C-alpha cells in the first residue's frame, strides 16, 4: 500500500479495529462458552467462562467411556453419541454427494441447454424452496412412511430416507452453480464439441474441472446443512441407534433434567466433521481455475 494516507485516517483505522475485535469476540464468545460448559463439572448452563475445576466427565460420556459419579458409582453412558456422530457423517456425506451430482447436472441443463419451460422451471424451483421445510413435515412423513411399505430401505427410521429427503433440497444449489457456469465462456465447451466430445464428455471433462471451486462450496454447504438439520431428521428417524447427532441431542434436554454439560460436549463433537470436511475441501476452493482459457 503505497497510497498516501491522511492523518485522520489513523483514528479511523483504530476505530475499525476496535469494531472488528468486538465483532470477533461476539462471534467467538458462544463457542468458548460451550467449550467451557463441556469442561465444567455438573450440568450448568451459566457460570464463569474459565472453569475453576476442569472435569472430563461430559467428554467421557460423549465418547461412550464409563463415568465415575460423585458417589463412587460407575455408570455407562446410556446414549450412543458416537453412533449418532457416525450416522450424521454418513447421512451428510451421502446427501452432499447426491446433492452435488444432481445439482451440477441440473445446473448444466439450465445454463447451457435450450428446452421448453426452462424459465418457468427455474422460477418454480426457487419458489418451492422458499417455503420452509417445516410446512412439508407432515407430507414428508407420510410419503416416506408409504414409501417404506414398498421399499423398506427408504422407509421411516432408515438413513436412506433421510438422504433422499435431503437430496430434494437442491434448488438453491442449482441456482448457485448455474450462476457459476454462466461465468465460464461456452466457447470452451464448443471447442470440446468440435474436438469430438459428446455433451456429457464436454460437461465431465471440460466444464466440471473448471467448476471445482463451486462444487466444493456446494458440497460443504450441503454437508453442513445435513449435519445441522433437525426437523426432518426428528420425524423420519425414531430408534435410538438410527438418530443423527442433531436429532439425538434433543435427548440430553428433557423436562426434568437439562444435561447441559453432555450437550455441550456432543455439540462440539458434531462440529468436528464439518471442520474436517472444510479443511479437506478448502484447498480446492481456489480462484482462477479458468485463467488462461481466454485472451486473459
Amino acid at each position, binding site marked *: 500500500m503505497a497510497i498516501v494516507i491522511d492523518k485522520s485516517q489513523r483514528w479511523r483505522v483504530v476505530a475499525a479495529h476496535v469494531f472488528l475485535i468486538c465483532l470477533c469476540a461476539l462471534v467467538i464468545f458462544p463457542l468458548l462458552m460451550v467449550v467451557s460448559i463441556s469442561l465444567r463439572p455438573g450440568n450448568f448452563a451459566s457460570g464463569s467462562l474459565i472453569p475453576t475445576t476442569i472435569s472430563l466427565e461430559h467428554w467421557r460420556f460423549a465418547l461412550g467411556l464409563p463415568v465415575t459419579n460423585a458417589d463412587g458409582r460407575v455408570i455407562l453412558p446410556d446414549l450412543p453419541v458416537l453412533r449418532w456422530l457416525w450416522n450424521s457423517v454418513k447421512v451428510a456425506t451421502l446427501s452432499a454427494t447426491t446433492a452435488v451430482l444432481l445439482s451440477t447436472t441440473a445446473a448444466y441443463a439450465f445454463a447451457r441447454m435450450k428446452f421448453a419451460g426452462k424459465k418457468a422451471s427455474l422460477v418454480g424451483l426457487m419458489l418451492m424452496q422458499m417455503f420452509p421445510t417445516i410446512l412439508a413435515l407432515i407430507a414428508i412423513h407420510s410419503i416416506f412412511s408409504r414409501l417404506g411399505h414398498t421399499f423398506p430401505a427408504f422407509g421411516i427410521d432408515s438413513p436412506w430416507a433421510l438422504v433422499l429427503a435431503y437430496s430434494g433440497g437442491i434448488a438453491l444449489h442449482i441456482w448457485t452453480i448455474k450462476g457459476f457456469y454462466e461465468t465460464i465462456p461456452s466457447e470452451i465447451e464448443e471447442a470440446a464439441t468440435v474436438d469430438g466430445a459428446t455433451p456429457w464428455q464436454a460437461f465431465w471433462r471440460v466444464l466440471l474441472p473448471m467448476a471445482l471451486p463451486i462444487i466444493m462450496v456446494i458440497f460443504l454447504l450441503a454437508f453442513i446443512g445435513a449435519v445441522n438439520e433437525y426437523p426432518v431428521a426428528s420425524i423420519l428417524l425414531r430408534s435410538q441407534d438410527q438418530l443423527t447427532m442433531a436429532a439425538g441431542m434433543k435427548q440430553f434436554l428433557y423436562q426434568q433434567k437439562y444435561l447441559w454439560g453432555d450437550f455441550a460436549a456432543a455439540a462440539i463433537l458434531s462440529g468436528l466433521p464439518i471442520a474436517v470436511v472444510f479443511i479437506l475441501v478448502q484447498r480446492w476452493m481456489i480462484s482462477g481455475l479458468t485463467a*488462461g482459457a481466454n485472451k486473459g
Partner: protein
Amino acid sequence: MADLQFKALRKSFGDIEILHGIDLGITDGEFVVFVGPSGCGKSTLLRCIAGLEEITSGELYIGGHQVNEVPPSKRGIAMVFQSYALYPHMTVAENMAFGLKLAGRPKQEITEAVQRAAQILQIEPLLDRRPKALSGGQRQRVAIGRAIVRKPGVFLFDEPLSNLDAGLRVQMRVELARLHKDLATTMVYVTHDQVEAMTLADRIVVINEGRIEQVGTPLELYRRPSNRFVAGFIGSPKMNFLPCTLVAATEALATVRLEDGTQVTAQVDARGQAEGAALTLAIRPERLLAETASGEGTARTSVIVSEHLGDTVFLYVHAPGGQGQLTVKALPETPLRTGDETHLRFPAKHCHLFGPDGRACTRLI
C-alpha cells in the same frame, strides 16, 4: 482435404433471419476469408459450417457430403476460436491431444501428432505448461496447434488475431499464410479486418447484413468492387465518395458533373444510366491528387487537417461544393498544410461510378 458448397443456406434465430440465402463454393485447399462489418452474419456462417449452429434451411456440403445433420465432430473440421477457448485445466500437450484422445487413438500416434504440431508452431518448450502461463500469442499458437493435430479437411478461424496486439498480429498473419502454404488445407477465416482479408485470402467473400456482396480475389475486390458497399469496405483509408450527375456516357468514357460544377471524366461504361441521373463518383485516397495550382478538370477546395505519417501525408479536404470531406493520400513532399487551398484532380482511369442503386458501372481498364 475437402471442398465446401453452400446452397441457399439460411439461418434464423427465432423470427430474426441472420443469413438470407448464401450460395457459395469453396474449392479444396483454398484460403477463403469472410469479411464484413460486425453483426453481418459472418461468424454465424462459420458456426454453421462447424455445426455449432443448426442450419435453418438450405444445404451445406463438405467434401461432397451433405452435413446439415452431421454433428461437429464428424464434419472433419477444426476451429480456432476468437477467445482461443483453451482448456485451462490441461497442459498445452493435453490441450492439443484432447481431440485425438476422445477419438481413442493410440498413445504413440497422439504423442507424434502433438510433437509434429508443436514443431510446426514452435511451441515445443511450452508443452508442459498450462494456458495460464502463456502469453496471448502463445495461447493463439496452442489453439491453432489443437486444430492442426486433428488433421481436419477444413480449418475454421473465427477472428483469431483480434485479441493480439498490432505487432503480434502481423507476425501471426505471416505464420498463418505460411501454415496454409505448408498444409495446403482448405481454410475459412472470418475477420472484420480488411487488411487480414487482403493479405491472407485466395478469395474474399464480402458479407453485409446476411448477404454476400461480392466474391473475388483481393485485387479484384480492390480494383473492381461491384457495389458501393464493397468499394467502401475494402481499402484503407476508405474510398472517397462524391455525389455527381451524369453529363454524357460513351463506350469509353463517362463525364459527370460534381456539385461545384467541375466536370470529371471516368473510364467506365455508364451507358446503362440515364443522362442527368444522380450517380456517385468514387476514387481511392491514394489515387486522388491534391495539387497546388488549378488546371483543367480540377476542383477547388481547402485542407481541413493534414496528418504527416513520415512516409505519407493524409490530407483531409472539404468535398468540393458539398458537405463532408475527402481523404487524399499524398507524398511526404507535398507542401500542403492545414488550411491551405488545394485543387483536386480525379484521374479518369482511377475513377469509379456507382448508380443510384449502389451498383458499379463497369470499369474499362
